[in-house]
Each structure stands twice: as C-alpha cells, then as structure tokens.
C-alpha cells in the first residue's frame, strides 16, 4: 500500500516537474528562440538626422507590412552618420520558388524595388514618440541611388538609401513660421492699439454720446410702451375676429375676380380687337387717300389760280391762245 502510494507520488512529482520544464522551454521558444530558425537578411541604411525613438527591436515595415526589426544601431565616428542594421525576415516575401532560392529572389526583388524608387524613412508609431522604419516609394522611379559612405558596406550586404522624415520638414516649417512671427512689429501694433483705446475712451466720455444714449433709451422705452399698447389693442380675440373678417373679404375679392374673368371671357375681346384693328387699318387707308385727294385739289386750285391770273393779264388769250415767251436779245 505504501509502495503504491509512493509510486503515485513519484508519478505526480514527475508530471509536475516535467510539465513545468516543458512549459518553460515552450515559452522561451515562443518568445524568441524561434527567431534562431528564421531566415533573415540584413539591410543597412544611414541617417544623418536624429533617430530619437528608434531602438533595437523597433519594427521595419514595407509599405505598412511588418517585415523585420532593427538589429543594431551604431554611430560612424568618421562622418557622424547613424548606421542602422535591419534584420528582414524572408518568410514575409512569398516568391513561389524553392526554399533555397528565397534569398536570391529577395535580393533581386529588393534591387528592382530600389530602381522603382523605394527608400526608407523614419516614421512615428503613435503619440508615444516611438519610431519605426518604413520602406516605401519616396523617390521617383529611375532616380539615381545615393551611394553609401566609403567602406561602410560589405559586398554581400544590402543597402537602402534613407530620405529625411516628414517631422524634419515640419520642424523646418515651424522654424520659418517662427522667424516670420519674430519680424512682426508688436511694439507698433501695441502703440496703435493704445492710441485707439485712448480715443475710444475720449469718445465714450463725450456728453453728446451720453445724451444720444439717453435718447435711444427713451426711444426704446417708447417702443416698449407702443408694443405693449399694440399687444393690448390687438388681443388674441380681436386678432382672431380681424382675421376672420379678412378671410371673408378675401373670399369676396376672390369671387369678384372670378366674375370679372367670366365677364371678360364673355366680352369676346379677341374678336372685337381684330375688328377694331381692321377698322383702324381702313381709317388709315382712307386718311392716306384723303391726303392724296387734298394734294390733288391743291394742285388743281393752284392751276386755276394761275389760269385766272393769266386771263386777267391777257384776256385775249382765251381766243388767241397763250403767247410764246419772248427771248432776250431777239
């Protein structure tokens, strides 16, 4: 019985210890030992700006996709550039070829992306100030690659040129704005403002303004009284009555309008108008003819006057006819 209990106890202890150790190893594996078996490629870049917020282990992303981490940050004492080594995990790049060709495929892809304008840049992770490195097309396709510093790269290592981060541009813009602000003549503005305020206080102290304000106050009071009177006179009941009267009147006006329309339609105005127009035309023609007749009558009268004059001057012409006119010099 004791032996059986002893054996059970040993089994339990064994499970406990082995279980704990297995768990320990499994956690270690999950937390990073699996990295040992990951296929990686080192990519190097150089920053001339501050890399504040970038640490070993910071993410490296290709167009937003996490592809690796920063593995080393160092400063080159010769040219003060910050050298960043990045470990890019090749498992993130699917080529479809065999496992052994993964590395060469990635290198080909990387070179073609550089020709297409891919560069790296520091980006902010969020509001915490932490940063990551982003690979994206920050240059135009075919743009000449910036050469790495002399002796900074092994022949087998990959290099990606860095472009300044947008934050640097923002700082530059802020600097320019501050410079412009510093040029503003605040003293002159302040003096002008002070003068204006003095004038304004003088204006406010003017008795005429006070009397104007008093009058405005009186007018406002009168207006208030008037408004009260109006509201008293035009009480709700009275207003309702007036409204009903107005409605009645409007109804009558409507009826009258309808009647007028009917009358107008009955008057056959278009026909009368055309008859008037024809009569008017006839009168116009008659007037013209009368004018012609009168002109002809005038001409007749002129002829008769001329005849009477010639008869009175030479009555014999009735018998002998009209004498020929004498030509000078004959």
């Amino acid at each position, binding site marked *: 019985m004791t032996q059986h209990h002893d054996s059970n*106890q040993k089994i339990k*202890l064994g499970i406990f210890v082995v279980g*704990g150790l297995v*768990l320990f190893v499994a956690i*270690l594996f*999950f*937390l990073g030992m699996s990295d040992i078996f990951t296929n990686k490629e080192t990519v190097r870049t150089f920053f001339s700006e501050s890399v504040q917020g970038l640490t070993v282990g910071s993410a490296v992303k290709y167009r937003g996709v996490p592809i690796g981490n920063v593995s080393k940050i160092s400063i080159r004492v010769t040219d003060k550039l910050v050298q960043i080594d990045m470990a890019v995990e090749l498992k993130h790049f699917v080529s479809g070829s065999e496992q052994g060709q993964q590395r060469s495929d990635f290198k080909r892809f990387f070179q073609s992306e550089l020709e297409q304008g891919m560069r790296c840049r520091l980006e902010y992770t969020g509001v915490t100030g932490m940063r990551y490195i982003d690979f994206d097309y920050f240059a135009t396709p075919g743009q000449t690659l910036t050469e790495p510093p002399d002796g900074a790269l092994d022949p087998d290592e990959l290099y990606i040129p860095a472009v300044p981060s947008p934050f640097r541009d923002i700082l530059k813009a802020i600097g320019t704005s501050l410079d412009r602000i510093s040029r503003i003549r605040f003293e002159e503005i302040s003096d002008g403002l002070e003068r204006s305020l003095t004038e304004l206080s003088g204006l406010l102290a003017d008795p005429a303004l006070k009397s104007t304000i008093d009058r405005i106050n009186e007018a406002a009071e009168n207006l208030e009284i008037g408004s009260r009177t109006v509201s008293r006179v035009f009480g709700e009941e009275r207003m309702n009555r007036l409204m009903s009267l107005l409605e009645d009147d409007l109804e009558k006006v409507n009826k009258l309008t309808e009647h007028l329309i009917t009358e107008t339609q009955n008057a056959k105005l278009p026909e009368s108008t055309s008859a008037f127009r024809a009569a008017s035309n006839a009168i116009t023609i008659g007037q013209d003819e009368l004018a012609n007749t009168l002109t002809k009558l005038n001409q007749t009268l002129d002829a008769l006057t001329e005849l009477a004059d010639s008869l009175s001057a030479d009555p014999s012409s009735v018998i002998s006819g009209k004498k020929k006119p004498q030509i000078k010099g004959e």
Partner: protein
Amino acid sequence: MKPKTEQQLRAISRHFRPLLQDGTRPVEFIGRIAAEVPDLLRHGMRGRDFRYYLDLCGVQALPIVLLICLLMGMVMAINGQIQLSKFGQELLVADAVGLVVVKELGPLMVALVMTGWAGSAFAAEIGTMKLDEQICALETMGIRPESFLVFPKLSAMLLSMPLLTIFGNVAGILGGMLVGITIMKITPVAYWTRTLEAINITTFVLGVLKSFPFAILVTFAGCFCGFNAANNSQGVGRGATKAVVSSIFLIVVADVIITVLYSFIGY
C-alpha cells in the same frame, strides 16, 4: 560615571536588549543554516523528505495557484478593458495583462499563495515538533534539527516555486485571453500575437528568477517562526500566523528591491 546616569543607561539597555535579541535571532538562524551547508553537501539529505515537501509545495499547491492566477488575469483584463475601451484600444489589454502577469503579478501571487500554503505549514509543523520535544530528541540523537528540517523544505520550495510561477504566468495570460475572447471579441490569434509582442525572453526569465528569493524567504520565515514558537498549542498557532505575516512583508520588501535592481538594467 555618576550612579544616576549609570542606572538610566542600564534601564535603557534593559528595554532595548529584547529588541536587539529579536533582531539578531533571524541572523543567527541564517548563520546556523549556512553552517550546515558543507555537511549537507557531504551527506546529502533524505530523498523521502524532499519528495514529501515537493509534493506538498508543488503538486498539491498547483490547482490553487492556477485558479488564483487565472482569476487574477481575468480581473486585470476586465479592468483594462474598461479603461482602454475609452480610447478604442481594447487590444492593448493583451499587452497589459501579459506584461504585468509575467513581470510582476505572476511571481508575486504565487509567492503569496505559497506563504499561506507552505509557510504556515512549515511553521506549524516545526512548532508542533518543538512542542512534542521531537527537536530535542533529534539533538539528543546528534542530528542537527536545522539541516534535518530546513533543507528538504528549502530544496523543494526552490524547485517548486519557479515551476509554479511558470504555470501561474500561463494561467494568468489564459485568464486575460478568456476575457479578451468572450467579452472583447478579440480573436485568440490576435490576443496571442499581441501578448508575444509585449513580453520577451528577458522579461519572462527575470520574472521567474524572482521566485527563487521568494522561495527562500517563505521557507526561512516559516521555519524560523516554527523554531521560535512558544511551547504550547497557542504558541504554535501564533507561530503560523507570524510566519504568514512576516513572509508577506518580506516578499513585498524583496519585490521592491528586486524591481529597483531590475530597473538598473532597463527592465
């Protein structure tokens, strides 16, 4: 020296002597244990005792440790969700739970559970042996009670506490994940990925390493209180209580010191 002044000094000395003795007694106890280490290395210890205490402090304590750590993880996740949902960042609950459990709460909760589970048991056991004069009998037989009684307990605790901490860490993370999946509707893969991103090997190992000093403190406090318990049944009870209280106090103080030390290396 004037007689009056001498009397006053003697009175002060009488007051402070017990306090001084109380202060030096734990140090003396540690010294006695340390003195037995070469003997332990030469002769070893009884395997049966070690197995008994490993069973008591490890196997039997495992369910309660798992349960408490699971619930602690759930509580943290719920509270984290309430706060982080204000910013629409519920997924960060995984980071918070993972980091806090592995770095701080896992080792601490396991140590506190073990204080109640094992520390009080050690004090009660040794106190009762003292009451029954078994310790005197051991001394009569030429066996040093400190090495005979303390080392199996200490060894078992040094082995079981880190293992329990590992189990506790996993249970805490699973508790948080349970809340994340059921209440926050986060997918298990997303939760697990966030947790792995938040913690790293160093954080995990440093958390587990904390359990070694905690194991030593719990064992020493329990055994010391047992050896110094009064020779009556009430004394045994008081000894057990004292063991728990002093263990908790020492664990918290040690945790503060360890955290400060870790901060020097950036963790």
